[in-house]
């Protein structure tokens, strides 16, 4: 018997793995192909083996193994179309809880447990930034598994649809005209370029861009030289990244630009958060205020940076969700 026929049946068998009637299906396909091939070589009605070329032809006419096996598989999708939008809504809600707990774990330096679903260990800032994308993927997986089981049960389960803020479905592209939006982006890009250039100029002259006064002829640095230099460079890098993103957006409206820009911003904020806050302010500034106010100042900066990181992360996740939804809706 043709090796090619056996290989073909073996391939179909692979895709039908786990189905009790697999052997029966394969026998019937074998019978059909041999019969057709025999007819092609004029051996119809006899037990004689058909030629290899005729078998090849019959196999080609029957179709690719995966497609053939696919016809036997139940039509039920992994997640029913009606539940697809729940996947992202529920993931967003679960991730919001995760993100909030992460912020609390970082700020209060404590473990958090919502029995039995979530355990949030005490996290450092960098740990938290690394942890959030993993948390998002885990949340997506949990929701997908639940929706998978609901779909496979075949029951008509009515799931709640909590409405909060702006529905992602309702996020529509800006209604501004093509040229108006391009002009706005160009103006933004030019302003950001000017800001970045000015910051670079100031940095070249003073080794910092943060000052305690606004007297141009007698500027006094706000931070100590070493941390001031590092923080200034990171902030200038953030300006430069925003400028580049705006210039790229002049040529493409792809959401990937925002995703990339947000990812860079999160990385830079992470670098800022890694900077030690002790002995941050120059002695003159620190001495002017009580230690309590200086401490509050440090924590205010930290909380502001955390807030920026959180907002940027939300924007990043939102961008990825919107892109994923579009990709999914394009899949037939």
């Amino acid at each position, binding site marked *: 018997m043709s090796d090619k026929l056996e290989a073909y049946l073996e391939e179909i068998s692979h895709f039908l793995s786990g189905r009790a*009637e697999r052997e029966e*299906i394969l*026998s*019937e*396909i074998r*019978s*059909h192909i*041999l*019969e*057709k091939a*025999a007819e092609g070589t004029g051996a119809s*009605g*006899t*037990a004689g083996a058909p030629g290899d070329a005729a078998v090849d032809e019959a196999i080609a*006419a*029957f*179709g690719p193994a995966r*497609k*053939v096996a696919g*016809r*036997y598989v139940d039509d039920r999708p992994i997640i029913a179309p009606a539940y697809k939008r729940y996947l992202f809504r529920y993931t967003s809600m679960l991730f919001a809880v995760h993100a909030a707990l992460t912020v609390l774990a970082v700020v209060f330096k404590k473990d958090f447990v919502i029995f039995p679903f979530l355990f949030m260990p005490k996290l450092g800032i960098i740990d938290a930034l690394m942890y959030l994308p993993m948390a998002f993927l885990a949340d997506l997986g949990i929701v997908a598994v639940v929706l998978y089981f609901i779909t496979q049960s075949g029951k008509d389960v009515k799931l709640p649809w909590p409405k909060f803020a702006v529905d992602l479905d309702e996020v529509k592209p800006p209604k501004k005209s093509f040229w108006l939006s391009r002009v706005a982006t160009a103006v933004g890009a030019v302003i950001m370029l000017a800001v970045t250039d000015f910051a670079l100029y100031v940095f070249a002259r003073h080794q910092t861009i943060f000052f305690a006064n606004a007297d141009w002829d007698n500027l006094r640095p706000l931070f100590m030289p070493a941390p001031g230099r590092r923080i200034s460079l990171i902030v200038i890098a953030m300006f430069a990244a925003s400028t580049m993103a705006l210039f790229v957006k002049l040529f493409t409206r792809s959401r990937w630009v925002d995703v990339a820009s947000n990812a860079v911003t999160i990385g830079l904020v992470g670098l800022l958060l890694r900077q030690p806050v002790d002995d941050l302010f120059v002695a003159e500034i620190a001495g002017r205020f009580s230690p309590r106010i200086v401490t509050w100042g440090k924590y205010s900066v930290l909380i502001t940076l955390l807030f920026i990181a959180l907002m940027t992360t939300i924007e990043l996740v939102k961008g990825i969700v919107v892109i994923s939804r579009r990709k999914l809706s394009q899949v037939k």
Partner: protein
Amino acid sequence: MTNNEPDIGSLETEMNRGFLHILVLALLEKDMYGYSMVKHIETLGYKVEENTLYPLLRRLEKNGWIASKWNLTEDRPRKFYAITAAGRALRANLLDVWKTQNRVLEKINKETSHV
């Protein structure tokens, strides 16, 4: 092809899905095996995708509308199918649906031909 033109291929596949049920149930008044059905349908001036027919036969059998039996006495093993009583009842119902649809379309055709 412009974007406004319908994809007749996928639409035809959808239409064939229902038609194939009636066709197979009508054919199996006489015992037949898969390949003989494919050949017979071809002689009637219609073509059925071979890899579509067998899964359909399996589904009809699962629902009790047709029954099958392997014949090992001839030169080659062949799986013969025959319609059951439940299959005949289903065929009658499907034919009624098909006739109603045909009647509606013909009426609309007549109406629009006068416009």
